[in-house]
């Protein structure tokens, strides 16, 4: 069987808040699959459903062929998970945290001990094995959690925002481990992130989520191909739609957000003077101009009219018909 995770029309509501709104995707064995999106897009909720911590409101989720609602124990055997918030016991040592985890997954004796030491070595924590976790730094804790989640050799490793709140060195280290796991063990990894560079750096395939929906899915190249070579952004006074129609050379021209347009071209520096000329002739006042090589951020902007960076400051859950959203958009 080639697909380890199958999600079909998953919906998850918390009272009247829709956190996940009918998403479908599959993860193939041996790939790194990333859910990319701002906070509150529904990534963690999706992961909690896959990890059997939440029941879906509707839709079906299979892990390794088992239904998460009908055979949660079978699913739990197959997955290892690193939560966004630490789930270590700070009062205990690194070794004891690993030991208890191993026991919970049916490991014992010499085998368990050897595995613990091997994994602690893998994440460079062997010398701190018998130190209490409360003396660990954030990066060390995250590494210990990664080691712990690998102890029972899961078929699917789930990492929820694996590098959130870490300094650049710790981040690079976690990235190295993830790459190594994929390269040397062919591990299937599902990770969520709101960092574009993280998704771009690590993932084979990316699903971009926003407001509980998957708005685009594919490899990094496929996603960027939506935009072509260069993207020019203009903010202007006047008729944006009308201005767009006058740019015959553009591959595509869309109005995104308020008075902001996105122009897809082959060579931005060449076309910029032309754009100014057309604006001058038509009496359109250009307030701001910029052009970028498309990254996942431009893809997100193209799809939602918002920058991924901007949306990071939004409320943690999509709130429907609430006055807060209306106030924010003013």
């Amino acid at each position, binding site marked *: 069987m080639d697909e380890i995770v199958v999600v079909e029309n998953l919906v998850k509501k*918390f009272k009247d808040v829709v956190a996940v709104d009918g998403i479908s995707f599959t993860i193939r064995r041996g790939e790194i699959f990333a859910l990319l999106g701002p906070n509150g897009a529904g990534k963690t909720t999706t992961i*909690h459903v896959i*990890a*059997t*911590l*939440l*029941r879906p409101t509707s839709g079906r989720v299979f892990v390794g062929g088992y239904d998460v609602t009908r055979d949660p*124990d*079978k699913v*739990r*055997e197959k*997955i290892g*998970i690193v*939560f966004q*918030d*630490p*789930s*270590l*016991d*700070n*009062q*205990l040592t690194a070794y*004891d945290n690993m*030991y*208890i*985890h191993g*026991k*919970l*997954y*049916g490991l*014992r004796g010499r085998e368990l001990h050897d595995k613990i030491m091997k994994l602690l070595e893998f994440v460079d924590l062997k010398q701190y094995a018998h130190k*209490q976790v409360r003396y660990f730094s954030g990066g060390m804790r995250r590494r210990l959690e990664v080691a712990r989640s690998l102890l029972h050799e899961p078929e699917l490793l789930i990492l929820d925002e694996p590098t959130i709140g870490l300094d650049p060195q710790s981040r690079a280290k976690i990235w190295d481990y993830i790459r190594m796991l994929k390269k040397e063990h062919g591990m299937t990894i599902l990770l969520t992130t709101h960092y574009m560079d993280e998704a771009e750096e690590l993932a084979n395939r990316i699903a971009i989520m926003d407001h509980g929906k998957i708005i685009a899915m594919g490899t990094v190249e496929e996603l960027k191909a939506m935009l072509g070579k260069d993207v020019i952004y203009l903010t202007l006074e006047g008729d944006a739609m009308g201005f767009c129609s006058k740019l015959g050379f553009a591959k595509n021209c869309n109005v995104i957000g308020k008075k902001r347009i996105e122009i897809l071209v082959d060579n931005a520096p060449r076309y910029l003077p032309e754009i100014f000329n057309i604006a001058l002739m038509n009496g359109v006042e250009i307030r701001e101009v910029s052009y970028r090589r498309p990254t996942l951020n431009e893809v997100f902007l193209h799809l939602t009219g918002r920058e991924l960076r901007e949306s990071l400051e939004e409320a943690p859950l999509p709130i429907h018909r609430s006055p807060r959203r209306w106030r924010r958009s003013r």
Partner: protein
Amino acid sequence: MNRDLDALIALVYRQLKRWIVSRSRIISIIVQPLLWIVFLGLGFGTIFSAENIDPSIIIGNSSIAKYIDPSVVRNMLSRYFTATFGGVDYITYLVTGMAAMTAFIGSFISGISVIWDKQFGFLKETLVAPASRKFIILGRAIGDSIINTLQSLIIILLALLITDQINPWGIPVALVYIFMMSLGFTGLGIAMSLKFSSMEGFQMIINLLTMPLMFMSGVFYPINTMPEWMKAIAVINPLTYCVYGTRYWLAGVETGLSFMNPITSLAILAVFMIIFTAIAMVSFDKTTVED
């Protein structure tokens, strides 16, 4: 099944390890009963002892005063206190009850630590494990009950220094009663804590619950002299039977209602323990991260 048993043992191990590491917790749990013992025991101990009472106060100076022998009055008083406290002095009466109370108070700490784990994430680690959740929470409750029983044992050993009326051979049997009571209340605490997300709310409910149960269990004074309504509550209070059993095996005291004896007390505690651990196991099985 094997893995479930391993999980149970893992959680017992975790609770014990945490207990050993947190010395401040051990001290605070033991200091509280010691304070009760010192202030109540020494304070009331002299009031409830015939040797310390001046018979002339009781005899007064009425016309028949000169016919009354003070030593007879003293004997009468002594007989009264013996009947009231089952043949031991008040401090022995109190410490034997306090042994049960120490484990009782400790039982609710379990619930608090479940909420703590909810907030600091360890609960999720146990929720995604493939081992049976029922066994995981049972392991936790057993681990905490072992701790509570050990804390009671410390109080009993300290009591041996204060009074010579305790029978050391009764200690192991008394600990069985204490363990069963603790497991029952730990189950209750865990089941309740799964419904709470804030420490403050839970702690308030616990305080409201523990105080009355403590006073209506016979820890401080015998239940057979209580007003009827208090007696009625004492009868349905599981702690009563633990206090009774503990006191019976430690000091041979039999102050209780007519139907109480060591066997019925044990049976009632067993039923209580089974019901509440079952409730805790079932409610933990249904837990999601939503509530």
